[in-house]
């Protein structure tokens, strides 16, 4: 009796599992359907299904779509909070700032005209007549509100410091000054006056930057969560509008018909899928589900680069960024300048690029990326082993070591990643051959590694810097003071004073010379060994034309079209 009873209940349990499973699967199919209406394929179907409504000779109207992928969900689509490239790629599509970086250089966008005061400090912009997506006019008050919102310490924006070029912005943000004193003022609805702290040569580029975008004052003041989802509240003023934001999965933009320059915009829809794994991105591209694989939207697996290159599919483009090895100048033996020079000179960058990193990077023998053209010639030849050996021996003598074996153990640290590790192993071998020294490699997870760098708990450490804006100062400034981004503990009075002078120098030629002199000091002191200048490597659907990609990694799809 009993036996039968429990057998039945057992079957019931099994049955229940099956039924529940079916119900759940059934549910998802239903919920999946409305989502499925969105993508391209279904759009095609619907036009094919209803040919009766259209004259037979009319070709079906196809949506012009561009599909790319991001490695992660955009962390924030509020221009005041965004700090990363993923978010700013989306934001560049949906927002319009005072200026926009175009293929022809930086041009006025949200502003129609501007005047500069004689001291290069005050900029007065007249705004173009254009509207937010909810129909409100974009006013100077929106800009003033947007910038002061970011500077408000309570708003806690990471990128508030991007606005520190504006007069009194830093004081207001650190709580020492008042927001009322910040140098941004709406004189009337159409006139915006911006006062700078110092004359800034590249300020027009900065005005195009994400943190400088306006937000709709009325909407944002009333709804703190306006930027959390696509929908009515998400009010923007750019070439595209945010249409779908399925968190963690997909972002879709559609053409903004109300954009002031809507005639230029040719794409109907942009779809950004969130796909973390590099191999999957390439698989999706090869499967025809993406139009772009690789930087700056996503990245390609290093192993695939040579193959794609051989097939002639890979496009490589220089990127404003420097991969480098930091020396901690407080740790013996790197307190000695000559040993830093020796190690840096001895690296054979080109072989490592050709055989290890394989991304067509450019050997870096200077801090400032070559495409900024601060100096024409590298500061030293690549793989300068002879001079390196000589310097190494001099350094040993200066430090009082009889031979290379007496040196303290040297550790090269990098964050955990196959790419960094392979490069470090190659360098380890090159140094062994050049000087007979045994360098130990150490790696740590990213967050842990950053902590080690900050704490000065390293001897030689991998580091990378991608330009924020197209000016050498962005690279030179890193090493002006100890702390912050300068983890090397290196400080040089002359270097710092040259940079200080450059801040207030209005004459472009004089300023360039000051920066050159500063870099020359830096490259002589060699607190870092520059390694290579980054490149972008990508494959894309050649039917999509005019995707604008500048050397900073900013992509702009305003001018893109499908052939």
């Amino acid at each position, binding site marked *: 009796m009993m036996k039968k009873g429990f057998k039945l209940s057992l079957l019931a349990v099994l049955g229940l599992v099956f039924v529940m499973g079916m119900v759940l699967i059934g549910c998802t199919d239903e919920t999946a359907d409305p989502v499925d209406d969105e993508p391209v394929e279904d759009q095609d179907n619907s036009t094919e299904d209803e040919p009766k409504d259209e004259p037979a000779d009319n070709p079906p109207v196809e949506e012009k779509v561009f599909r790319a992928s991001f490695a992660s969900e955009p962390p924030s689509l509020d221009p005041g909070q965004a700090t990363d490239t993923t978010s700013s790629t989306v934001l560049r599509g949906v927002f319009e700032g005072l200026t926009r970086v175009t293929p022809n250089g930086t041009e006025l966008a949200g502003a129609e005209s501007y005047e500069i005061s004689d001291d290069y400090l005050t900029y007065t912009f007249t705004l173009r007549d254009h509207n937010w997506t909810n129909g409100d006019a974009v006013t100077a008050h929106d800009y003033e509100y947007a910038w002061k919102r970011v500077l408000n310490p309570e708003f806690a924006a990471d990128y508030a410091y991007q606005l520190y070029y504006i007069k009194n912005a830093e004081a207001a943000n650190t709580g020492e000054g008042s927001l009322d004193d910040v140098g941004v003022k709406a004189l009337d609805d159409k006139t915006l006056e911006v006062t700078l702290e110092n004359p800034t040569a590249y300020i027009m580029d900065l005005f195009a930057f994400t943190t400088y975008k306006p937000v709709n004052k009325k909407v944002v003041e009333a709804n703190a969560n306006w930027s959390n989802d696509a929908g009515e509240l998400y009010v923007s003023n750019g070439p595209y509008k945010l249409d779908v934001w399925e968190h963690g999965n997909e972002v879709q933009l559609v053409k903004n018909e109300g954009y002031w320059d809507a005639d230029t915009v040719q794409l109907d829809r942009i779809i950004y899928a969130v796909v973390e794994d590099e191999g999957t991105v390439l*698989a999706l591209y090869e499967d025809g589900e993406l139009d772009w694989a690789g930087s700056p939207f996503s990245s390609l697996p290093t192993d695939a680069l040579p193959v794609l290159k051989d097939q002639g599919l890979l496009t490589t483009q220089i990127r404003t960024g420097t991969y480098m090895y930091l020396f901690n100048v407080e740790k013996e033996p790197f307190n000695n300048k000559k040993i830093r020079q020796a190690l840096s000179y001895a690296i054979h960058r080109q072989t490592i690029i050709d055989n290890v990193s394989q991304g067509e990077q450019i050997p870096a023998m200077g801090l400032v990326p070559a495409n900024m053209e601060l100096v024409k010639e590298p500061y030293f030849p690549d793989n300068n082993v002879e001079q390196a050996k000589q310097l190494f021996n001099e350094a040993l003598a200066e430090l009082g070591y009889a031979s290379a074996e007496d040196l303290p153990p040297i550790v090269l640290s990098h964050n955990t990643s196959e790419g960094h590790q392979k490069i470090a192993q190659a360098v380890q071998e090159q140094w062994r051959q050049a000087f007979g020294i045994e360098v130990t490699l150490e790696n740590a997870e990213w*967050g842990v590694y950053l902590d080690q760098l900050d704490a000065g708990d390293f001897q030689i450490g991998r580091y990378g810097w991608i330009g924020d804006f197209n000016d050498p100062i962005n690279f030179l400034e890193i090493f002006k003071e100890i702390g912050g981004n300068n983890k090397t503990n290196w400080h040089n009075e002359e270097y710092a004073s040259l940079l200080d002078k450059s801040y207030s120098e209005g004459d472009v030629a004089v300023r360039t010379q000051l920066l050159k002199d500063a870099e020359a000091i830096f490259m002589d002191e060699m607190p870092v060994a520059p390694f290579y200048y980054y490149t972008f490597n990508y494959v894309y659907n050649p039917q999509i034309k005019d995707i604008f990609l500048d050397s900073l990694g900013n992509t702009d799809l305003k001018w893109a079209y499908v052939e």
Partner: protein
Amino acid sequence: MTRFLLRRLFFVLISLWVIISATFFLMKAVPGGPFSAEKKVPDEILKSLEAHYGLDKPLAVQYYDYLKSVVTWDLGPSFRYDAETVNQIINRTFKISLVLGLEALLLSIALGLFFGVMAALYHNKFQDYSSMVLAVIGMSVPSFILAVFLQYIFAIKFDIFPAGRFESPLHHVLPALSLAALPTAFIARLTRSNMLEVLQQDYIKTARAKGIKENAVMIKHAIRNAILPVVTYLGPLTAGILTGSFVVENIYGIPGLGTQFVQSITNRDYTVIMGTTVFYSIILVFMIFVVDMLYGVIDPRINITGDNAKGGNANEFQ
């Protein structure tokens, strides 16, 4: 029984508390923070960020706040993703992982039972060997290799299924297969060995002797008894599939809880780390609890109440 339930529930809560506390203190002990980046945020801004998220409070206060947030299941905002709270993230991603997990679960039960029964019925014949070869492959090939392999063959080479993402039912096939491979193999082997054992039992011989048709013998008497151990395996299997899907999710670009969990650790997204860990622990602990209960229901010989008075009666049910 009630007393037993209450006692088990108490232990469940205690183990959850231990997990929660361990996660909290380990997370705080790990170097790096949610706001560390290659480009350093100025110290003043860092301070206001920390104040904004309550990280400037003493550790004890943070711990208390955290326990409170877990108890009320209001896990707060993500540090990294401004647009969503941790609750929203878990709700959104778990739905996806659950669907994928259940598909894999059903697939593995169906295929596993099929292969297992086949193998036993055709013991030492072609069907047996091929099933068991498949099972060995399924058990020994890690899911991430299988996932990439399936993706390459069926999506890129033959273009039958999409290479990734989770949109239409077609998108579900490859990830569900990759995830189901290991449990399928396990269930197949389990079923096979049980079937073989059951088929030797006297009651099967009796049934046959009584002239009952072979099909009826198999279905009514053999398979029913052979799948008992499979049922007990369902609990840990469900928990395993639900919590262990992150590799497959990553390879197919599926925005599930597993992907979220791994990312949150890289990002030091404290609230998401805690939320997902606690959520996973609840699933695991609850599943173990359910399995313990099920053992009692399925096999009355197992005495779950710890009450020895009833222990001696086991043979009655044999």
